[in-house]
Every structure is written in C-alpha cells, then in structure tokens.
C-alpha cells in the first residue's frame, strides 16, 4: 500500500446466510484515477462498495479508505451515489441538497452556495425551488450526482451512474466526472456500459460471483486479451498473404475479415505484403484488440 492509494482492500469476504456475495477480493484504488468495477448482476459490486463505505462489515479481511479504516471524519471526504437512487420526494431540491451537504460537514452558507453553483452548471437553476417528485427521472439523477459531489469530496463511489440516462445527460455526467478527476478526485464506479469504461476509466476490477476475474489497467487488459490477429477491410484474396493462418469473416454491418496470424508473423509484415501487392486494396487495417465488451463476455462465458 503506497501513499497514493485511495482505497486498499485486502482479502475481504462476505456471506449472507449460505450465499457467498464477495469471495476473497484484494485490490487497490489509486488517488486521482477512475476505477471501474465490472461484473454481471449479482456479482457483488454493490456489496463491495457498501463494505468500503462501512455500511456493511466484511466477515473477513481489511479495508483502508484514504489511508485508514473508515472513520466519521473520513466520511465527510467521501461522496456516495447508491444504485437505488436516494432522494427525498416531497422536499424542495435546494433544501434537500443543503441538508445533505451540511450532514457532510458543510456550513449552511457553503452548502447553499455550492448547491446553487452546481445546479447552475447542470442547467437546473430553475428547478431549485421545485419538489424532487416534480422532476423528470434524468433530472433526479443529475441532482443525485450533485448531492454526491456537493461537499467537494476527495473520493466518490458511484453505483451505476449512467443507468437510465439519455445520451445527452450521459454526456453531461461524463463531463462532470472528468472535471472531478481533473481536480484530483478519485472515482470508483460500477457500470454495465463498457464503452464508458474504455473511454474514461484508468483501471478496472471485474468480478463474477464474488470472485475476482480481471484486475488491472484498462489498456493492459485489452492488450492481454488481444488476439494475434488483424482486422482488414478492402478488396483482394487475403488467403494469398504470407503468414495468415486462418481467415474469419466478421460482419457487423460492414464486411470485414479477421486474419489470424502465424506465431512468428508480426502485423507490420502483413501490412507490408498488402502494400506490395497489386491485387489488394485496403480500406481498414487494425489490430484485433477486443472491446471490453468482448472480454467481459469471454470471461463470463468461462473462457480464460
């Protein structure tokens, strides 16, 4: 555990009755990064988050948050967005934000100022005096996020922040998350949207049935699952290329071919061969690095 570790989790397990929700997880979240927690439904993501937040106690193992086991003072430096959105229904937006902000240690004046500031950035200043129940679902989710970062925490833990958001609001939220990170904040988020992870996250932990499946930087993991293959589009008979072991047709909308290479052949050799050939015209050439989505499905499907 180094000084720039925001969260240190060591061999935690948690069972509910006979159901083992979290099974011997160990991982670190570094300060200033966006850390993704992935996994199918019921994998134990929310339970792990709740243990980090000390809502639940692990049966075994040890957790340190911002350098020490969670204390009341540390709670003021953390923001939490539960998966089941927690908002009062019959309370005015600003009033609720100020209340939850003061519970995190802000003064009433600061909480008011920051609430209005955030509402303005979210384009929701007009809604400040409205009751939460009068807001649309997307608006409520933005308010939720605003509550999470209201007290300017060092670390936010957000459970499925993008679920149910339309593309426009997803973009707004993404910008907010990136600007939170730019100011040095640490983000732990669980999500189903792999594209978001690829675009935003630095490192990830994938769990299934409570066990760790993947853990590391997003780039490393994609490299690790990269095939010794290239994807090409264009005209020509690819089978005439030297070093191609097998051709697989992948057609999602456009026709492309996946060329599996022989072990000793590198992609640039193939590219050179295509360039040298008069019969082949190339429109697309890329390394077959799988999307996280593919990796997710492969790992979940039981393949290595």
């Amino acid at each position, binding site marked *: 555990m180094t000084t720039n570790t925001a969260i240190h989790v060591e061999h935690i397990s*948690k069972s*509910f*009755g006979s*159901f083992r*929700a979290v099974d011997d997880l160990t991982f670190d979240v570094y300060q200033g990064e966006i850390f993704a927690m992935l996994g199918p*439904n*019921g994998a*134990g*993501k*929310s*339970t792990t988050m*709740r243990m980090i*937040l*000390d*809502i*639940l106690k692990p049966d075994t193992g040890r957790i340190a948050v911002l350098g020490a086991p969670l204390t*009341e003072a540390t*709670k*003021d430096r*953390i923001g*939490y967005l*539960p*998966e*089941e*959105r*927690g*908002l*009062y*229904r019959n*309370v005015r937006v600003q009033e609720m934000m100020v*209340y*939850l902000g*003061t*519970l*995190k240690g802000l003064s009433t004046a600061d909480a008011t100022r920051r609430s209005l500031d955030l509402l303005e950035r979210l384009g929701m200043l007009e809604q400040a005096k409205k009751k939460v129940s009068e807001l649309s679902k997307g608006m409520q989710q933005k308010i939720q996020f605003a*509550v999470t970062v209201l007290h300017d925490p060092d670390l936010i833990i957000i459970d*499925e922040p993008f679920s149910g958001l339309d593309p426009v609001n997803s973009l707004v939220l993404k910008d907010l998350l990136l600007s939170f990170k730019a100011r040095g904040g640490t983000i732990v988020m669980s999500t189903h949207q792999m594209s978001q992870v690829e675009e935003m996250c630095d490192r990830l932990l994938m769990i299934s049935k409570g066990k760790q499946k993947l853990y590391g930087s997003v780039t490393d993991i994609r490299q690790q699952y990269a095939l010794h293959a290239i994807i090409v589009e264009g005209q020509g008979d690819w089978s005439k290329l030297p070093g191609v072991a097998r051709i697989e047709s992948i057609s999602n909308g456009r026709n492309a071919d996946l060329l599996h290479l022989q072990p000793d052949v590198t992609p640039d050799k193939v590219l050179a061969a295509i360039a040298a050939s008069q019969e082949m015209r190339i429109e697309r050439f890329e390394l077959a690095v799988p999307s996280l989505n593919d990796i997710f499905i492969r790992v979940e499907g039981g393949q290595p």
Partner: protein
Amino acid sequence: MNKIGLVARREYLFNLRRPSFLFAVFGVPLFTFAVWFVVFAVISSTEEDISRVGQVGIVDHAGIVEEMILPDQSPDLFTSYPDETSARAALDSQTIGAYFVLPQNYLRTGTVESYSYSNIPAALRNQFTSLLLMNLGMRVDQPTSVERIQNPIELTIHLNDSGRDLTESNLPALFFIPLIFSLLFMMSTGVTSGFLMSGVVEERSNRVMEILITSITPTQLLLGKIIGLGSLGLTQLLVWGVAGGLLIRFGQTIPFLQGVTFPLDMVLIFIVYFLLSYFLIASLMAGLGAISGSDHESRQYSSILSLLFVVPFFFITSFITDPNGTLPLLLTLIPFTSPVAVLLRIGFGVVPAWQLIASLVILFISTLLVVWASARVFRWALLLYGKRISLREIWRVIRGVPSVEPSVAIPTENQS
C-alpha cells in the same frame, strides 16, 4: 454532537410544515372550541330557562324560609311543602318540576339536596340562592348564618331514576381534566412518534438512508430524529396549553368552565410523563420503522402501540369507584399504561408518593432499555428492504448476535 442537531433541526422544520401536523395543532383545538361553543350555547339557553321546570317546591327542615320572603322577580315560583313525601307526590304528579330539601343541619353544613327530572338550570339555582340569602339575612345575629350567607349552598343534585349523584364543585375537575390531559398526551405522542416512524420507513424505501448513514452514524440519526420530533411534540403541547389557558381565561362567563383550572402539580407530572414516555414510544417506533416492510405495516404497529396507552380508559369505572384499588395500581406501574393511569388517578383521588416514584422509576428504566435496544435494531435493520424479520431474530440483534445480515434481502444485487 453537531450532526445530531442538524438532523433534529431538519426533522423539526420539515414535520412542522406537514399539513397533518398543522391540522393536529390548530385544527383540533379550533374544532374543539367550535363544538364546545355550540354545546355551551345550547346549555346556556337551557340554563337560563326556568319556565321549563315549572313550579319549584321547598321542604324546609331547618326553619330558614318559614316566613318565606320571596324574591321580587318571581313571587310565585316557590311553594313550601311540609315534608318530603308531599313534595315527592307533587313532583310525581308534575305539579312541580323540582324541589329543594334543606336538612335540619343546613345552617352548619350548607348541604342542600334537589330532586328533579333533569338537571336544574343555573338560573333556578341562582333564584334559590337569593331566596336563601334573603331569608338568612334576617338572622345575621347568628354566626352560622353569616357563614351560610358567604357560602349559602352546597348542592347535591338527585336526578330522578338515574341513581347518579353529582356534587357541583368537583364535577369538572373530576372528569374533564384527567380526560383532557390523557387526550393531549395520546395525541402529542401519537402524532410525533408516528411522524418519526413514517420518516424512517420513507428514508428506507427511497434509499436516502444509504446516503445518510455514509454521512453520520445511525445513533446520531436516531437521536437527532427523537430530539427533533420531541421538540415538535412540545411545541404542539405549548400551542394547546396557550389555547387552553386563553379559553379558561376568557371563558369564565361560560358556566361550564367556571372554576376549571389546570392544577400545577398535574401539569408538572404531565410533562415528566410526557417526556419519558415520548422517548419510550419514539425509540420503539423508530426500531419498528426500521424493521417493518412498508408504510402500511408500520401503521399497524403504531396503532397497536397507541392502543397500549389507552388501556386505562377501558377500566375507567375502576378509576372512578376505587382509584387506589389493585387494577389502577397495576396500570400505574406498567410503563405503557402508567401515564394515563396516573393522570386519571390524580384526577379522581390522591396517588401515594411511593407509587408515583415507583411508576416513574420503572418508566425511566424501561425507557432507557428500549432506547438502547431500539438503537441496536435500528442500526442493524436500516438497510433491510422488503423482508420480514422474526421476533427471534430481533431478540438476537438486541443481544448483539444476529444470525442474518440485513442486506441479504437487498434486491439490487440480484434483480437489477
């Protein structure tokens, strides 16, 4: 701690603005005043109307009105009868509508009895009083007469056929004050602890609870809620107290309210019992709110709880006939029934000091126990979503050895 204060303040201000609270605080007294006003209007008109009684007889064993000097306003109202048999016969034949009996010892005791079909109007009582005064005035040389002039009548009213005797001076105090105090008690504890419970249920169902307990500890949350809503209950009592005080102050012209006071000892005892039992019921409600699956279910719990407080009313006849009997004593000692039982007994008699102390000590200890146990259940069950918990499990939680983690029932992991 500061955060307890924040929760208390929020709970106070939020619930203060609830329509149901505003109705309970202002609507109930206004409604009561309105009803009383109508009732008094009816009563006072009947109180003024002497003619409905007709002729009135007097049986004088004390020799006060032998040479009857009749009041000027109603020279023909009173008729003298030599004995009660003839007066009774006249009443039965409805020649007269009522008769008064002055016993031989009247001069010493002031005791007067009246027999009538219905309660005699205040106006008639005044007429009779002035008749007595005029006749007593002829004998100011006797010291007992002077005393009687100062306080001419201690009337016992016998209602024909009902067999119930009422003494004038103790009637309102006897019946209404303990009743009013008990009602106030039940309403204020019921309203505020009900708010507490539904607040907890709401925060659990909308998951604000998860944000709350990652900001403060469950104990801070529980205490903040209890203090905030307790202050709300006191506010409610204050409003009612002021309203009641005004009513008594400006309502002295209404015969019914004459002489009604709220004795200070009763007010003090009321406040002590209110605070203790409020803590008892509020923490119990918070614990129940934390384990109950729905608003509907929690309402059932709260109505059962409020029923416990009303139990003494079921045995109100025991309290009237024998306020120091076994049953009233028992109800004085049981924590839930003690507030109302004590208030009733103080109204109808005197509660021995040791019983009062024992009752308070028992209430205090059980309140501490319940607050402690509820805090444990509360902390444990905050994240319990939609799952029924057995009494055995609750008992395990209180002892600190739960067999199930509450979040086993969290649906988010398995269903979303």
